[in-house]
Structure formats: structure tokens, C-alpha cells
């Protein structure tokens, strides 16, 4: 192979590459770049090499892209807020005891239900008596009732991820809104937002059924790993699409991932993590469809960027942040 351009040349070539990629780079930048390339033939060679690498890396498969982003893309605001957060940690630790409220409710059959609850902005991991692992999202409530024939769990609100210890003689059944999810050797994520339910399977299979479906109609299906089932109470229908395990459980790493979800659902879930609640003033905004990632430690910067994506206006008020229709505001 011909001699490699020196590191210094490579550095300058990369600087030109970044400068030329600027959308506003004008004809004069191109002229200056041409002058640089004609100074020495190694200049253009180095430039071609950095361009080629950038192209290769810009067309990686989705899994590689996501894994690199996960490793290297960290919110700056979190680093800046590190000190105040550390100071707040001691207070949070004291409050945690109260945040996870574990209560006992007496049931007719003599079986007791155990209730797990998490506070705003607090994810909790715990293990159930049968070894099933649960990750409970922020501001979520879970009720667990283990009988001899069945293990019943209800997600009353919020989100939970289950890694189920399978036992065919004692099925693991999650009730969430109008839907039941029955494990067939599985790990899956369940989220309830009002009456809307989303189930994402990361491993194995589950059977999902609409509890209120009439005897005649069949509204149940089996979902396998990599599938996401959304239940919409208005349509009383279930739709299936694709989700990666990393996306389904991103919230466990403080990232909320939304794929084609109504803004109203996004806001409701964000509020489980937000210090100050977010209100939608104009109901028509709730139907806007959003796809993207929100870091729970950078919610404010996400809110600030919202008007660039949607026709809405952000105003900060004492009780929280209000989103209103930009067309209404303009009058």
C-alpha cells in the first residue's frame, strides 16, 4: 500500500470534511478546499479516506448504530446536574422507604394481594416469591396475588417488565386494563396509559386477550419476541408491530422510547418521570404522532425542542409546563 498520509494531514482533511458538510457552506468554502487539495496530492487522498470511513460508518446496520449510540451518547445536562443530584441522593434515599409502598389486602379466598408502588422518577427492581424478576417503572402500581393454581399480577397504572419463571401448572397472568397477558416462557414489558395498553415481548411468547370481548368474537392473539401489541380501547382492537428488546426496556436505562405513539400517551408516560408535570391545554394536540427517544434526565431540553417538531407552544407556569396549540396562541 502507498504511504499513508501523516496524522497531521489526516486531521486537516477531517476538518475540511466537517466544514464542507455544513449545510450553509458556500462556494467560497469549496474554493478554499480546492486550493488546499491542489497544494499536495496527499491532501485529496487523505480527504477521500476520511470521507470513505464516514460513509461506511453512516450506513451501519441498526443494531450497531444503536449500540454505539447507547455507549457514547450521554446527555450533557446529566453530567452538569451531577453534583446537585448527588446532594439530593441522601434525601431520595430517605424517601425511598415511603416511595415503595407495600401493602396487604385481604381477599375472599384467603389469598392476600401484595401491592407495589413506585414514586415519580423512580424505577424499582425486585423479585417475586417464585423467582420472577420485576422492574417497575416510575409512578406505577402493581398488585400481585399468588394462588395455588395461578399467579395473578395486575398492572394498575404505569409500566413493568417481567422475566417470568415459567411453571405450566401455575400460569403467570398479567391483567392490565382490558387485556390479559399469559406467559408461555417469557420476558415481556407491559405498559398501561389510561385505558391504552402496550405489551412488548423481549423473549419467548405470550398469549394476549381482550377480557371484555363478547363470547362470539375472538380478540386474542399470540405474540413472540420482537413483537409489540398495542390495545386501543376506543377501537377495541389490537395492533401488532415490531420492537427490539433494547427499545422495549430502554426506560430501565432512563430512556423513554416511543414509536408512532400519540402525544397524549407520550406526555402521560413522561409525567411519570417529570419533576414538574406537563399539561396539554388543547386536546387536538394529543393526537399528534410522535416517534423518538426522551431521556428522563433531560426532559426539559426535550420540551424546549418540541415546538420545532409540532405546531405547539410551550409555556412554563407555576403548576408545571403547558403545551398549547400554536395556532390558538397566535389568535
Amino acid at each position, binding site marked *: *500500500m502507498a504511504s*499513508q498520509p501523516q*496524522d497531521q494531514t*489526516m*486531521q486537516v*482533511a*477531517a*476538518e475540511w*470534511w*466537517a*466544514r*464542507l*458538510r*455544513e*449545510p450553509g457552506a458556500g*462556494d467560497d468554502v*469549496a*474554493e478554499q*478546499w*480546492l486550493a488546499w*487539495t491542489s497544494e499536495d496530492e496527499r491532501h*485529496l487522498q487523505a*480527504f*477521500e*479516506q*476520511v*470521507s*470513505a*470511513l*464516514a*460513509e*461506511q*460508518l*453512516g*450506513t*451501519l*446496520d441498526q443494531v*450497531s*448504530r444503536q*449500540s*454505539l*449510540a447507547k*455507549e*457514547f*451518547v*450521554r*446527555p*450533557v*445536562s446529566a453530567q452538569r446536574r451531577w453534583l446537585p443530584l448527588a446532594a439530593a441522593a441522601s434525601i431520595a434515599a430517605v424517601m425511598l422507604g415511603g416511595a415503595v409502598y407495600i401493602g396487604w389486602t385481604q381477599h375472599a379466598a384467603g389469598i392476600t394481594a401484595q401491592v407495589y408502588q413506585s414514586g415519580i422518577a423512580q424505577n424499582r427492581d425486585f423479585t417475586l416469591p417464585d423467582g420472577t424478576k420485576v422492574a417497575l417503572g416510575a409512578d406505577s402500581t402493581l398488585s400481585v396475588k399468588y394462588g395455588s393454581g395461578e399467579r395473578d399480577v395486575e398492572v394498575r397504572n404505569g409500566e413493568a417488565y417481567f422475566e417470568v419463571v415459567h411453571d405450566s401448572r401455575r400460569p403467570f397472568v398479567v391483567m392490565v386494563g382490558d387485556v390479559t397477558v399469559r406467559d408461555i416462557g417469557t420476558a415481556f414489558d407491559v405498559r398501561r396509559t389510561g385505558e391504552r395498553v402496550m405489551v412488548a415481548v423481549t423473549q419467548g411468547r405470550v398469549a394476549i386477550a381482550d377480557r371484555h370481548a363478547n363470547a362470539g368474537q375472538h380478540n386474542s392473539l399470540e405474540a413472540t419476541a420482537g413483537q409489540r401489541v398495542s390495545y386501543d380501547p376506543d377501537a377495541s382492537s389490537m395492533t401488532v408491530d415490531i420492537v427490539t428488546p433494547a427499545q422495549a426496556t430502554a426506560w430501565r436505562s432512563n430512556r423513554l422510547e416511543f414509536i408512532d405513539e400519540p402525544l397524549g400517551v407520550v406526555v402521560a408516560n413522561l409525567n411519570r418521570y417529570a419533576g414538574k408535570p406537563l399539561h396539554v391545554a388543547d386536546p387536538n394536540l394529543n393526537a399528534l404522532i410522535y416517534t423518538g427517544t426522551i431521556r428522563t434526565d433531560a426532559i426539559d*431540553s426535550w420540551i424546549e*425542542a418540541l415546538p420545532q417538531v409540532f405546531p405547539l407552544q410551550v409555556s412554563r407556569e407555576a403548576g408545571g409546563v403547558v403545551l398549547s396549540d400554536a395556532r390558538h396562541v397566535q389568535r
Partner: protein
Amino acid sequence: MSAVTLSVHVSDIERLFREQNRALIAFLQCRLNSLSDAQEVAQEAYLRMLTMDNREEVDSLRSYLFKVAGNLAIDRLRKRKVRSEFAVVQSQDEQVDEHSPDHHAVAVEQVAGVRRALKELPAKAAQAFVMHVIEGRDFSHVAQTMKLSERMVRYHVAHALAHCRARVDEKEVP
């Protein structure tokens, strides 16, 4: 143009092609992040040059070529943006080669090398690089997310790109 001036013009463009084509392709590959798109756009630019009707107004054919090509590149990026809205539907057809074992093996090797190289860099440089080069975010978007100026983002991206290139080359030339 008369027959004589036309033939002069054609030979001017031919010379332009011989002398500038490599730089033009490099320029367009940088803008478009795709060598095959760069080649297509370059071809169209030469075609525009051959059929230009304002030869008298143009001082430097080379400057004009890069200007025409630059504008064509902007058009193409715009179209790409529109197309990407349909990407979800099309992705299964378009990305077939991603799943071929060869492509995958190269990617895995490459990703491991880049990951090692990025770990050697300051966190901000690595983040700006991943966001712009790998995730394809605009400088303005990266600047906003990282709360940096666009100039600093460019600096970080360039630094990381040069570093990754050097590390990859070390491996290729043992």
C-alpha cells in the same frame, strides 16, 4: 453557439472532467455520504455543463462546476429527507444486503475497532462523532443536544474522525 465554439466548449468540459473529476467526486461524497450518489450527481453536473447556455457569463468553469454540483447535492439531500419518511415501509426491501453474512462480518469488525478508537477520545468528541456520523444528525441538532456551538461540534467530529481513520489504518497495515 456556433459549431466551432461548441466543439471548443466540449473539449473544455472534457479537460475539466480529466483534471477535476476526482476532486468533484470527493467533494460530493463528503456532502452526500454516498459514493454512488456522488457519481450520479457528478454525471448530471457535467451534463448541465455541456448544455449550459451562459458560457460567456462564467469566469471559471471549475467554480461553476462545483457550484452546479453543490446545488444538485442539496436537491438530492432534500429528496432523501422526503423519502426517509417512507423508509419504514421500504426498509425491508432496501436493506437486504445488510443481512448478508459478509456485510455483517465487516460491520462487526468495524464497529469493534471504532468502539476501541472512540474510547480513547474525550467523551464529548465521541458523542458528537456518534451523533453526526453514525446516527446522521445535523450539526445544529448535535449542538443543541450537547449545548455546544456548532463550531465546537465540527471540531469534535473532525478530531474523532481523524482518530478513527488513523486507528483503522493501523490495523490494515500491520
